[in-house]
């Protein structure tokens, strides 16, 4: 059984409430941290090697150290709870079942960064979780962990929950800030980065829910101890939300030393492919990251077992690898159609493009239209090349990463499953009624029996 740092107590009865959470050792990190120098807390997070858990994987301590501290200007910490990357539902689980863990992480982080007014920006659809978080905030306040002069240290902090209203783009930190200011979620041009000019033009740090929750064990055990868990630059534990055609979908906390094969087939995690089917493909880190066929998913191009961590998942670059991303692990069985699946993702990105940059606004629409054509048996071989060309023109040509996120799934689907796109074009009648199974591949995808 892997070591759990975040979800260890998720099944303790009543853990949503302050008294139970406290009895189980909760808020010890606040007591410890508030006796430390803020800079020392930042140092612990740096030592821990913690990387942003929202998708980008940027070192969190380093991000914190960029925060500008001009005299007389407020600084803000904003928690990004706009979890919207298809396949990702880990933050929801954490907030729903362990709200005090997030609040505790937020208090410690607010103290470290000097934020007296901290916001949790939660996606609008998670409406019922707003009440759970507000309850936890109220309880923490009643017990002296929030509000004025916390634990007699002179530190004041309030946490507010802000609901979004349905926009994937607000997970991008500058779009989130715009939305928090009561505007459309249009990402800003960077620089300046939020650390210099963020919310209301003040220095701001935006961190993912899981990242902020991880600050609690880091303070409790010390950054160096935390860094001993995991492997290489993948330190600590990671929450993975697993979904698709598996026996046990759900949220799992993993130690980043386990293999992808173990994660999929072990009963401790996904429990294998549902209905006795074979594994065809998987998107290991949320819909934006490259899809991999079963063989490349389980084994790197070098022939080594692929592990569930940042380095191993990206081994081989985009040619033969993928990314850890947000930890949204989407599994496709042998009956699934790659064209159809890619089309749903293309539709998602077209719907969610904010419309500021032409390559993304126009390109995502074209990609959806062409994929619709191919899926419906009306495509030509030249359409596949056109898709490739369009995604190349979106990637890197937009002010925020949504463009890349829209381009990568299309590129990877064509890169690894071109046979299947061609089969659609060459079998316009069949593709309407049949799924393109593993058998159609010239070079069959090798999967474990």
């Amino acid at each position, binding site marked *: 059984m892997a070591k759990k740092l975040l979800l260890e107590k998720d099944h303790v009865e009543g853990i949503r409430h302050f008294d139970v959470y406290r009895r189980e050792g909760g808020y010890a990190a606040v007591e410890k941290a508030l006796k430390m120098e803020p800079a020392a807390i930042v140092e612990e997070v740096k030592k821990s090697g913690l990387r942003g858990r929202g998708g980008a994987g940027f070192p969190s301590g380093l991000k914190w150290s960029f925060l500008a501290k001009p005299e007389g200007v*407020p600084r803000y910490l904003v928690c990004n709870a706009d*979890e*919207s*990357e*298809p*396949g*990702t*539902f880990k933050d*929801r689980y954490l907030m729903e079942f362990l709200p005090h863990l997030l609040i505790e992480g937020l208090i410690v982080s607010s103290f470290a960064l000097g934020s007296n*007014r901290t916001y949790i920006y939660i*996606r*609008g*659809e*998670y*409406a*019922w979780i707003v009440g759970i978080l507000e309850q936890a905030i109220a309880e923490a306040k009643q017990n002296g962990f929030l509000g004025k002069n916390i634990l007699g240290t002179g530190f004041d902090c309030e946490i*507010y929950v*802000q*609901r*979004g*209203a*349905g*926009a*994937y783009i607000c997970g991008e930190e500058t779009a989130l800030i715009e*939305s*928090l*200011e*009561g*505007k*459309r*979620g249009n990402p800003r041009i960077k620089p300046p980065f939020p650390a210099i000019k963020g919310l*209301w033009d003040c220095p701001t740090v935006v961190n993912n829910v899981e990242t902020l929750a991880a600050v609690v064990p880091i303070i409790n055990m010390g950054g160096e101890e935390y860094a001993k868990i995991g492997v290489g630059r993948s330190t600590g534990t990671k929450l993975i*939300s*697993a*979904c*698709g*055609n598996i026996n046990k*979908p*759900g*949220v799992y906390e993993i130690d980043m030393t386990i293999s992808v094969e173990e994660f999929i087939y072990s009963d401790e995690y996904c429990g294998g492919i549902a209905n006795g089917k074979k594994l065809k493909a998987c*998107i290991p880190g949320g*819909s934006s990251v490259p899809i991999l066929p079963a063989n490349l998913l389980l084994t790197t191009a070098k022939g080594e077992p692929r592990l569930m961590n940042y380095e191993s998942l990206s081994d081989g670059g985009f040619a033969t690898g993928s990314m850890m991303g947000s930890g*949204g692990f*989407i599994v*496709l069985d042998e009956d*699934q159609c790659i064209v*159809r*699946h890619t089309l*749903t*993702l293309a*539709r*998602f990105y077209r*719907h*969610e493009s*904010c419309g500021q940059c032409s390559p993304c606004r126009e390109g995502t629409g074209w990609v959806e239209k062409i994929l619709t054509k191919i899926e419906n048996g009306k495509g030509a071989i030249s359409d596949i090349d056109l898709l490739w060309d369009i995604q190349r023109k979106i990637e890197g040509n937009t002010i925020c990463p949504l463009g890349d996120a829209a381009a990568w799934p299309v590129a990877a689907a064509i890169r690894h499953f071109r046979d299947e796109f061609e089969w659609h074009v060459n079998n316009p009648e069949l593709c309407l009624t049949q799924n393109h199974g593993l058998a159609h591949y010239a070079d069959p995808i090798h999967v474990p029996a």
Partner: protein
Amino acid sequence: MVKFSEDKLKEVQSMIDRYPEGKQKSALIPLLHLAQEEFGGWLSAETMDYVGSLLGIEPIEVYEVATFYSMYNLKPVGKHVFEVCHTGPCMLKGSDDIIGYIKSTLGIKVGETTADGMFTLKTVECLGACGYAPMMQMGIDYREHLTEARVDEIIAACRNKQQKTSKA
């Protein structure tokens, strides 16, 4: 005329108080949620203008936000809105069949409302319930692990509730 009750106005003030002085525009998104709940499940131009007046901002500042976010309804909707997710992970678990079943059961297309004004069917993009797919949102609640039988139960429960309310 569109106007919040005294109680709701207190709630409005507490929303505005979450932000530093002069930054009350930040309350726009939460206020539009509140207005949509209070004023018939959608945002009319009158409602949006009213929200703008509460925050001291121009109507256009409200319109541009209301039209950007997918949770705001810009035209009237049925009493119960079924928002069925059809992005990749839900598709893998049969969301297209669920949408087809709801369409045939209610006799409406996506985007339409039943003649009795009871149900509206919409499709939405990923709602973060991928492990519990297929799913839909109904008001503030999620309905997960949908099957045809489960859809039947949900529709029947909505109809029963309606009958009870009209009898009372």
